[in-house]
């Protein structure tokens, strides 16, 4: 059974059709890329998959569970976590606090636990903190654990966001342009991180503009243009697809 199955998703805003009947299937252990010109609908698709928007039609099934139109926190519970194109960290919390928030849905202590601070609650808190530290190490920003998130460098912020998403124990990690604004070295490091994440059992869905990164890293790629999926398959094949070339370059090469 595929990990994620999106069928015929459509979404319009007012008169603008942002997505029409887009389908994709992601298998476990893949790194799946989503590319396309600006405005093609990639982030809209992301937002539909992760519950920020409700689709006008279509369905999303995650690991066998129907999650179409469910609220974001339900989808995260089901195992899909995301990062944001514009980095949405909790700016004034420290790095480690950000990641600790990511552990919220996998832990239980409520108000009563917080007030009484019994052994179970304190044990859970320790576990949360330990896991957060581990994740910060994992993505390579452990030295900034106690710095405010907004004071981290751009690349570190992106990695922190990934750590935070990983804290939710996702099956599918959806990354929205994680390499945006990064130089070649940072991108290579990011690629290494993503390989590691995949190796550790998390499937990745990736929106990216960096063609080299996508082609080198992804197992399969889907191309969106004007809200429609115009090509889907192995990167090498998609690269040569006429429709894709036309979408990016505006016309077939002579």
């Amino acid at each position, binding site marked *: 059974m595929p990990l994620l199955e999106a069928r015929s998703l459509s979404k319009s805003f007012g008169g603008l059709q942002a997505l029409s009947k887009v389908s994709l299937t992601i298998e476990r252990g893949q790194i799946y890329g989503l590319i396309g010109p600006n405005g093609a609908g990639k982030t809209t698709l992301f937002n539909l998959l*992760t*519950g*920020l928007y409700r689709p006008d039609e279509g369905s999303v099934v995650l690991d066998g569970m129907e999650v179409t139109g469910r*609220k*974001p*926190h339900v989808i*995260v*519970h089901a195992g899909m*976590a*995301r990062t*944001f194109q*514009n*980095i*949405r*960290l*909790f*700016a*004034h*919390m420290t790095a480690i*606090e950000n990641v*600790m*928030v*990511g*552990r*919220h*849905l*996998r*832990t239980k*202590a*409520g*108000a009563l*636990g*917080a*007030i009484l*601070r019994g052994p179970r*609650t304190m044990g*859970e*808190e320790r576990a*949360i903190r330990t896991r957060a530290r581990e994740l910060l190490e994992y993505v390579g920003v452990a030295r900034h654990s106690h710095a*405010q998130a*907004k*004071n*981290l460098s*751009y690349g570190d*912020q992106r990695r922190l966001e990934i750590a*935070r*998403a990983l*804290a*939710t124990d996702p099956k599918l990690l959806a990354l929205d342009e994680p390499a945006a604004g990064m130089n070649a070295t940072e991108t290579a490091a990011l690629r290494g991180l993503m390989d590691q994440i995949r190796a550790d059992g998390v499937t990745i869905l990736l929106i990216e503009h960096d063609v080299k990164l996508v082609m080198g890293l992804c197992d399969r790629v889907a191309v969106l243009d004007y809200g429609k999926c115009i090509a889907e398959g192995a990167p090498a094949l998609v690269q040569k697809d006429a429709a894709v070339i036309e979408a990016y370059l505006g016309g077939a090469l002579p």
Partner: protein
Amino acid sequence: MVTRLLRHWNVLKVHRHAPWIGTALVAVSLAILPFALEAGLSRTWVRIVDFALLYAMLAMGLNIVVGFAGLLDLGYIAFYAVGAYSYALLASPHFGLHLPFWVLLPIGALVAAFFGILLGSPTLRLRGDYLAIVTLGFGEIIRIFLNNLNAPVNITNGPQGVNRIDPIQLGGMDFTKTQEILGITFPGTHLHYYLFLLLTILTIVICIRLEDSRIGRAWIAIREDEIAAQAMGINTRNVKLLAFAMGATFGGVAGGLFSAFQGFVSPESFGLLESIMVLCMVVLGGMGHVAGVVLGALLLATLPEVLRHTASPVQQQIFGKVILDPESLRMLLFGLALILVMLLRPGGLWPSPIRRRELTNATAPAKV
């Protein structure tokens, strides 16, 4: 917290035992305060401090809603009212019911929490400004109902309010009467002081623990960026509702205590102005910072008396009469305080480390 304070001021370097000495000093001062006040000023001041402690509890309750979770509630006093009236109706000649104290407070808390959930469920998904107005409306609705539910069935006794409310009875002692314990004479005001002080300290501990917990982090995350919080799996609706309900509970308990202390409640104690005053305590003291909020409450609760002793004589001196009576002066200062704090020192008089960063960095561009 005292230890943290002292560490912050590097007093620890002075003496190894400094934190303990500091805590002991504070404890002793608090213990003898009512006697010191009565001797130095008057018993009225002990009463003022008693009310100030009630406000401190209220302010901490509102702080959970406004300060931690970032939800502007302008009708918070409604929960105070609900708690007060629950107590009054169940412990006075009005219905002839006289439930014991230890039953009444939890009931008041539960009723207030219920109203908190009732109000919060449909409205917490609204954006900040809309939520503010809706809560304001709710506060007014409660007040109007309290004022008018005396016909055809007399539930609240309308504008006249409920009086002859049972005093607090604990350990066989009637708190309105002077008691003799271990050879020391404790007038009613002093008895209430110790009870309220205990409850205030309890509230402080609860709030500090809440802040530094999984729930506290969730509240702050929602305050920082609700969409990101949702994307991290936080059920923001329920978590916000929890903040609301907790705030309401504190209000309800404080309301019950108020009822018992004053012996009398009426709708006019629970208007918009009171909601704004509690908000002012939170904002002025330091939004989101428990210590700041307590400071704000103590300052603003004692302000009218201070004004009465300073502003009035000063005006008499200069103008020959009092132009601005303490009440009007107080409200004027509240309004001014809200404006000035937001413009000049949004973190409040005693900001929390996080909040100060948040609010004063408003004009600095975010690092993207």
